[in-house]
């Protein structure tokens, strides 16, 4: 389509203007508001005991979610790609389900299953608290991050085929040797990409986690819950800005990693 210079320039201005108003200005303002009182103020605000414990809790949840998702995600991807069984299509649909479910609905569903009056309420009554405890927050995070590893590893498994694995086992490698030496190296970038997405979402999840957390500062507050409670409960607007900027910094690192990994994957 040949577009006159004038049209092209005005389209460019509209597109960039839209992005600037929607993304650029708000992010600029929050950065300005965070760093205007000085760097030391920012550091003081994100190193209060509540903030530190929130960071620790967020990292703890990530540390549990990632290995679990890697193990079960790779297993699910292998089953979906290599398995020939009835109901595979159904399993595919189930893997995508978490993306279609609102975070709040995830929280309500977990309460209906694991809460005191839920199907597994006996656990709670026996003293193992899931809802309003860390297990509930981990379950919520695993729910929302479940598809990432599966969906990043699956296409790679499709692409590499099975010849190499078959060759390895013909040469006498056992199942685990084949997996460690052939399959895992082949899927490593896809897997890493899935892990990066999982970490980003696990750190940033809010809706599902707030539903199943008791939200006590210093006990069961993640970084996202800290941002919320500082703004709503403490009317500590600056503290909320500072914590949000910290999360934004993490998100930027993730974005950078995503871009780099993307290049790495396409080099393959």
């Amino acid at each position: 389509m040949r577009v006159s210079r004038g049209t092209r320039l005005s389209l460019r201005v509209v597109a960039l203007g839209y992005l600037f108003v929607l993304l650029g200005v708000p992010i600029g303002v929050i950065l300005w508001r965070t760093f205007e009182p000085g760097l030391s103020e920012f550091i003081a605000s994100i190193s209060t005991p509540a903030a530190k414990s929130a960071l620790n809790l967020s990292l703890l949840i990530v540390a549990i979610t990632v290995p679990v998702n890697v193990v079960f995600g790779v297993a699910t991807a292998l089953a979906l790609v290599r398995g020939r069984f009835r109901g595979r299509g159904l399993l595919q649909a189930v893997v995508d389900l978490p993306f279609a479910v609102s975070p709040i609905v995830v929280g309500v569903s977990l309460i209906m299953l694991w809460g005191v009056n839920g199907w597994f309420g006996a656990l709670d009554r026996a003293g193992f608290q899931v809802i309003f405890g860390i297990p509930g927050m981990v379950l919520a995070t695993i729910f929302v991050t479940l598809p990432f590893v599966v969906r990043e590893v699956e296409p790679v498994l499709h692409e590499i085929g099975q010849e190499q694995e078959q060759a390895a086992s013909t040469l006498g490698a056992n199942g685990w040797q084949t997996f460690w030496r052939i399959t895992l190296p082949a899927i490593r970038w896809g897997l890493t990409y899935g892990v990066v997405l999982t970490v980003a979402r696990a750190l940033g999840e809010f809706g599902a986690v707030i539903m199943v957390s008791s939200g006590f500062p210093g006990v069961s507050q993640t970084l996202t819950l800290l941002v919320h409670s500082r703004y709503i409960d403490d009317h500590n607007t600056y503290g909320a800005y500072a914590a949000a900027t910290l999360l934004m910094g993490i998100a930027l690192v993730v974005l950078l990693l995503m871009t780099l990994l993307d290049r790495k994957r396409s080099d393959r």
Partner: protein
Amino acid sequence: MTSDTDQQRRGTRPETDAAPLPPRPGLDASDGVRPRGGDAAGRGEGSGGAPRPARHGKGLRGLRRPLGIGIVTLWLSVIVLLPLAALTVAAFDEGLAGFWEAVTAPAALASLWVTVLASAVVALVNAVLGTLVAWVLVRDEFRGKRFVNAVIDLPFALPTIVASIVLLSLYGPNSPIGVELNATRWGLVVALLFVTLPFVVRSVQPVLIEADREVEEAAASLGATTGTTFRRIVLPTLAPAILSGTGLAFARAIGEYGSVVLIGGNIPRETQVTSQYIQQQIEIDRPLNAAAVSVALLAIAFVTLLLLRVVSSRSQRREERDA
């Protein structure tokens, strides 16, 4: 180019596999053919007398066996299916009448109306401006284009609550530009536009890159004006991608919570979206209401994604017929 298509994949997939994935150059050929080729080879050799188990390792074979599949199924059930089943059962705790009563409560209906209205506006704006942004990113050349291209993904990387705070710092109380949108429906729309920005851009971009420009040139040389060329040539090519991006943005906006929780203001019948209503019902200990409205919200999202899948498979079939 590959990086663009990859980003697109990331862009559309987060919601469903219903989206028609535009052809991925280089990948598609091997996608379909190679694994099948490998399989066929395996089967051929198997029937040739070599016992199959000897050819496959135990670890991988396990996942093809009932035990491995059983473990995967059990895992998905406990994490995903059982909670949703418990939710559905709770929604119909007092029968169909109880469910209907909960969903049609005035406050619930009002929240559903606000949600659908705001999401529809957001989807439409996305359809127009998202396509425009994609066009500029593909067909235009300017300094800093790569940077702008990378920034598009920011709303996906940014936690939703941070999106909320970021927008509040600009449009909230003491707004530095004097525009206070908090606790208005416009605030909702801005927040939802922020978080759904990548969907349409990332689904249109790869199609635009692949689009045959010669056809456009031909139309122009036959005397078609720019407008006609756009309407008759470019738009039909992009339509499936625009539609799928718009649908995904709509589905995302329907369930959004984190980004609207602070800027929306949670005013019943005015700016309270369904996810906020559900959360409120849990807080005041009305689990039946919360579960019933959750099921209604899920149903809206599923119907949207189902429609998308039907439309995309239909347009795919038409494409195959034309080819």
